[in-house]
């Protein structure tokens, strides 16, 4: 396998974008910024990777807009985890000689056009009669089961939202930066019990992009390369009613695959970017990726342990809960991990971060994709 590296990353405009902006505008804006960050010209891109609920043929839109005619195209759509999957797919394509410079991109205007319009849910005849509020009810069912089996509390879930907000306060690009307390989270209106509105991610516009190439080529670029140390994918179901065990996700498999490929373990990770669509998800992923035992996620996050200054640097940009959640959040996990490994985190920089774990989640806890990223120093 060719050693792949991320040569450049960028966000598009985030939050609430100008009237008339399209998802392709944001995808392209992020792409051009990421290419500039990499010091690579758009004409050098020969592989396109994208996924979008608003653009079923997203790589075609991206190629047309940027006037790139790629020789390799991958629009794998596994929800919010797609872009972490694309990292591994890009590495495979580069290794196979199918492309040399891969551009992974995403853009969404779900705040502008409304969530219902941006993210059409397919109709399932066995779930439709019960009118589930998707995706939140699926995550609420998982939270109910976690609370029942392990005694996890709403206060522990709230700790996740409070820590995310504290990180967001250190990130000038975060959408919500005002203080948030456990009491605020508990007193917010319930949406789908036990999850209240502050247990749910933001609804924002936004996008991101990453440029992936061989480590050798990335070294010639403008920014310090971040190496892909290992990656793993797994999925277990499409519908929440078909998830085998609501307290155990396929992150068990994706995480094991990524750690094995990288020859690393949880103790080697300096910074974690875990998909936080709802407060229950980081708890599940901390357990399933091996950072604590099954059922101990709630205890793990107590007492500000994952907040700035805590023992564990988790979701250092403020996450989907407080920084940005444009329908699918996965690409922004990668952007933040790369920034941390380059030492560009500003006020929120984790000192000496050498290894980062990014974990994407898609569907209703359906698809799980994990990647380990590292500085060049980690390769020696």
């Amino acid at each position, binding site marked *: 396998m060719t050693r792949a590296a991320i040569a450049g990353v960028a966000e598009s405009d985030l939050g609430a974008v100008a009237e008339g902006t399209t998802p392709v505008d944001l995808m392209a804006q992020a792409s051009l910024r990421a290419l500039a960050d990499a010091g690579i010209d758009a004409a050098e891109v020969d592989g396109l990777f994208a996924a979008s609920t608003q653009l079923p043929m997203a790589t075609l839109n991206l190629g047309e807009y940027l006037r790139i005619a790629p020789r390799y195209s991958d629009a794998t759509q596994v929800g919010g985890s797609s872009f972490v999957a694309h990292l591994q797919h890009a590495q495979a394509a580069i290794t196979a000689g199918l492309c040399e410079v891969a551009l992974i991109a995403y853009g969404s205007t779900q705040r502008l056009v409304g969530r219902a319009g941006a993210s059409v849910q397919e109709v399932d005849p066995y779930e439709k009669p019960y009118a589930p509020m998707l995706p939140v009810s699926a995550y609420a*069912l998982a939270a109910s089961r976690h609370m*029942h089996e392990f005694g996890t509390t709403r206060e522990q879930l709230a700790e996740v939202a409070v820590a995310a907000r504290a990180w967001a306060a250190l990130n000038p690009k975060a959408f919500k930066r005002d203080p948030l307390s456990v009491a605020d989270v508990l007193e917010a209106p319930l949406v789908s019990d036990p999850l209240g509105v502050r247990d749910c991610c933001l609804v924002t516009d936004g996008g991101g992009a990453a440029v992936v190439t061989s480590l050798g080529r990335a070294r010639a670029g403008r920014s310090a390369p971040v190496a892909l140390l290992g990656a793993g994918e797994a999925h277990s179901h499409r*519908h*929440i*009613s078909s998830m085998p065990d*609501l307290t155990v996700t396929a992150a068990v498999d994706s995480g094991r695959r990524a750690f094995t490929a990288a020859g690393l373990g949880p103790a080697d990770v300096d910074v974690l970017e875990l998909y936080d669509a709802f407060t229950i998800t980081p708890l599940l992923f901390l357990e399933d990726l091996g950072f604590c035992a099954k059922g101990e996620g709630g205890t793990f996050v107590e007492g500000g342990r994952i907040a700035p200054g805590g023992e564990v640097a988790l979701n250092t940009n403020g996450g989907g809960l407080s920084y940005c959640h444009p329908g699918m959040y996965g690409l922004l996990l990668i952007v933040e991990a790369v920034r941390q490994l380059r030492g560009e985190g500003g006020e929120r920089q984790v000192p000496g971060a050498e290894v980062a774990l990014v974990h994407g989640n898609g569907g209703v806890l359906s698809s799980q994709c994990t990647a380990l990223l590292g500085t060049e120093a980690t390769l020696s």
Partner: protein
Amino acid sequence: MDASPGARFATLWREGKLAYQWDPATASAVFYPRVGAGLEWRVSEGAGTVYATTVMRRRGEAPANLALIDLDEGFRMMSRVEGIAPEAVAIGMRVRVRYAGEVLTFEPAT
């Protein structure tokens, strides 16, 4: 195929039967019904246990229950528990199918 799995399931429900499938190869129940060689159609006794539950609070609407039910035959389905307040539905509660109406729902097994 003569009838889709979904159509066959719906027809059986109209006859008052909760249908599921049995896979002899793995000796396990299968739900939702699907196309597959060797899958046998069976009818559930309609008794089960609440596996997970939530109360959905849509603006301007009454709170509504949503639950995953584990049927005694070994399969799980989405449904709702009726006849009690949505907040009173609890994990582990024994329930049974309500053989009434177009939508397949459950009620507490008293």
